[in-house]
């Protein structure tokens, strides 16, 4: 049973996706989407003692389990939200839709293709989390790009086409560089006493001390740039705001909360090898640099951002910067960064789903045209407000704890300059988002949202509310199993530095 668990985790969504492409009824397909998500989450929850599969190519270590758990939880929320969303999008007989920004007509991609790609997307992300071989990891990360590009192009108009094209091309180039990184790593292993070593983590890590350091460093740089492109680290983030703002909101939630983490896992795997070779300092310096730069750049673009989905996208760039920074600082900050990955995914998932509610009611993404949400859409407005507090790291949300842990580790480690820059970036983002998001909630409803009171289906509210509640709960109480998982995962990264 335990040996079948990992293949089942990948195969369940894969088969679900194939079935979704075949069956005709819309309602059974939506049920299939939600059902697969539930099964996947149950399998993930029970994956504690999963044995390696495929001759050791696939295995679940605590790091993989952590990111798999995040992806699976978020996917369930997105799938439930998606059931209602798809009913609203394709429910009416006429499939021509009015473009929100330009008033031209467009149609949606077929629902079967959308659902199928969603499930394939889950399968590929699962494969990223369970791969123990860096080559398989590469194949899986590239596959996530291919499975998600059609999702971004669900609304068939020219802006989403542009976003999908940029996403596909930029990420493919990035991933190609990561492939070169894998090759460089393979060259580095040739200097070990036993000759070239397969890129399996369990074989690489014990032998890492004998690798050729120059090739290893070059390999890390290419892996960082390659996976960093996908993760959205500045200045390689250029695809991210476009893809997040033009795709359907549940896809944005998955991209931001699950996909970026999967790419981050690629960077972490490279760092594992680097620190096993005793070169952790080199990688950590790079990560701190990329992290601070991403935070600073995101803060600059959040101030005065006219579009609320782009604002959330830049906030993701900021939080990916925090993750990179935390791991780069080492020590206690690694725990903080991994905990922050959990918190960020929950809250950003919630915010994108709420943004979807606002968008479907107000029919505009422009912040200036949305006012008075607290009266027009009371529940979504309240969630939006809670999301603002959570994403900016206000207590008592989990984000506060994790951001504070990173700050404390920076100060304890004597990195005062880093701590100051970190605080400045956080403060700027807080002020910037405060100005934008509070104005949307307060005041009397603007023309765009005036006549929409009460148009809040429960299926569009429950998933984001649940994610938000989880994010809040983590700030008050971290369950022992999660804390243990986080500690074990952090030990994989910090134990050697």
């Amino acid at each position, binding site marked *: 049973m335990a040996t079948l668990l990992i293949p089942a985790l990948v195969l369940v969504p894969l088969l679900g996706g194939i079935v979704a492409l075949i069956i005709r009824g819309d309602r059974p397909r939506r049920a299939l989407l939600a059902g697969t998500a539930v099964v996947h989450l149950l399998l993930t929850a029970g994956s504690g003692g999963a044995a390696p599969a495929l001759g050791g*190519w696939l295995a679940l270590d605590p790091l993989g389990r952590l990111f798999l758990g995040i992806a699976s939880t978020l996917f369930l929320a997105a799938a439930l939200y998606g059931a209602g969303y798809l009913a609203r999008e394709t429910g009416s007989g006429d499939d021509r839709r009015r473009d929100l920004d330009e008033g031209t007509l467009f149609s949606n991609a077929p629902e079967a293709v959308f659902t199928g790609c969603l499930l394939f997307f889950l399968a590929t992300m699962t494969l990223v989390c369970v791969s123990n*071989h860096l*080559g*398989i990891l*590469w*194949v899986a990360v*590239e*596959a996530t*790009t*291919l499975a998600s*590009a*059609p999702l971004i*192009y669900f609304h*068939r*108009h*020219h*802006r989403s*086409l*542009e*976003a*999908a*094209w*940029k996403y*596909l*091309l930029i990420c*493919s*180039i990035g991933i*190609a560089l990561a*492939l*070169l990184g894998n*090759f460089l790593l*393979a*060259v580095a292993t*040739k*200097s070990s006493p036993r000759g*070239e070593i*397969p890129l399996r983590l369990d074989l690489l890590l014990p032998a890492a001390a004998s690798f*050729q350091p*120059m090739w290893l460093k070059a390999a890390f740089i290419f892996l960082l740039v390659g996976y960093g492109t996908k993760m959205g680290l500045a200045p390689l983030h250029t695809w991210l*705001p*476009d893809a997040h*703002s*033009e795709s359907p909101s549940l896809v944005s939630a998955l991209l931001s909360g699950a996909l970026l983490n999967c790419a981050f896992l690629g960077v972490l795997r490279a760092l594992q090898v680097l620190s096993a070779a005793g070169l952790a300092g080199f990688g950590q310096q790079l990560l701190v640099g990329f992290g601070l730069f991403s935070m600073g750049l995101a803060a600059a*673009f959040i101030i005065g951002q006219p579009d609320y989905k782009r604002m959330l996208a830049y906030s993701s760039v900021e939080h990916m910067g925090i993750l990179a920074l935390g791991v780069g600082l080492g020590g206690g900050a690694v725990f903080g960064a991994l905990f922050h990955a959990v918190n960020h995914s929950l809250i950003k998932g919630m915010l994108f789903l709420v943004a979807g509610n606002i968008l479907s009611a107000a029919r505009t993404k422009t912040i200036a045209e949305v006012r008075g949400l607290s009266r027009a859409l009371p529940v979504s407005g309240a969630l939006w407000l809670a999301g603002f507090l959570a994403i900016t790291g206000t207590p008592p949300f989990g984000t506060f704890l994790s951001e504070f842990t990173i700050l404390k580790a920076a100060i304890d480690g004597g990195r005062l300059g880093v701590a100051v820059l970190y605080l400045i970036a956080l403060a700027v983002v807080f002020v910037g988002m405060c100005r934008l998001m509070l104005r949307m909630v307060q005041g009397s409803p603007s023309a765009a949202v005036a006549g929409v009171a009460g148009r809040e289906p429960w299926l569009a509210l429950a998933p984001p509310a649940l994610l938000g509640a989880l994010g809040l709960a983590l700030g008050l109480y971290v369950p022992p199993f999660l804390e243990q998982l986080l500690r074990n995962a952090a030990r994989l990264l910090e134990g050697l530095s």
Partner: protein
Amino acid sequence: MAHVEDLILALLVLSGFVFLGSSRLRFCIRTLALQGIMIGLLPLWSGPRTLPARALALAALSIAIKGALLPRLLERAMRRANVRREVEPFIGYNASLFVGIVCLGISFWIAARLPLPEASGSSLAVMAAFFTMFSGLFVIISRRQALTQVLGYLVMENGIYVFGVALALDTPALVEFGVLLDVFVAVFVMGIMIFQISRTFEHIDTDKLSALKE
């Protein structure tokens, strides 16, 4: 049989210059097909010869995909999008050729400086690999049309593949199949998108894909 390998590598570098200097898409796609066949054959001369059956299977598969299938997909996309040539690239053809020469120089410099592990690969192959990668990247950056950018991506991918072959890396078959499959699907999806772009914008100039920015 080292001279066969050297001949293939020299042809590879020449085909890189063809990409940089040619505006006719059909010609570029044919060159890409030729490149695919060449790099498919390369491992038979320079790769690890421990598993000939596996090496043959991989060579056959990569020639089938890179030498036949992908070029046909691209030609189809070219016909459906109704484009013949790359008009007015951001950087002209003569300038591109000059950049190519600079790339070649940089590639020589890198290949000469890299401390190669003993008993693996020739520095000529490393040079050809880097040059192919650079020329692909440059084509992506400097051309306007979506189709040419896909060609550039494939050339870059070919360069990385040559790097793996050149250093005689023993990548497992599963990974190589995975990489081939990914590249194939990537081009397939890109081909569909090119068709969509041509239908939406009535051409595939990515210069016009500029509604989304700050």
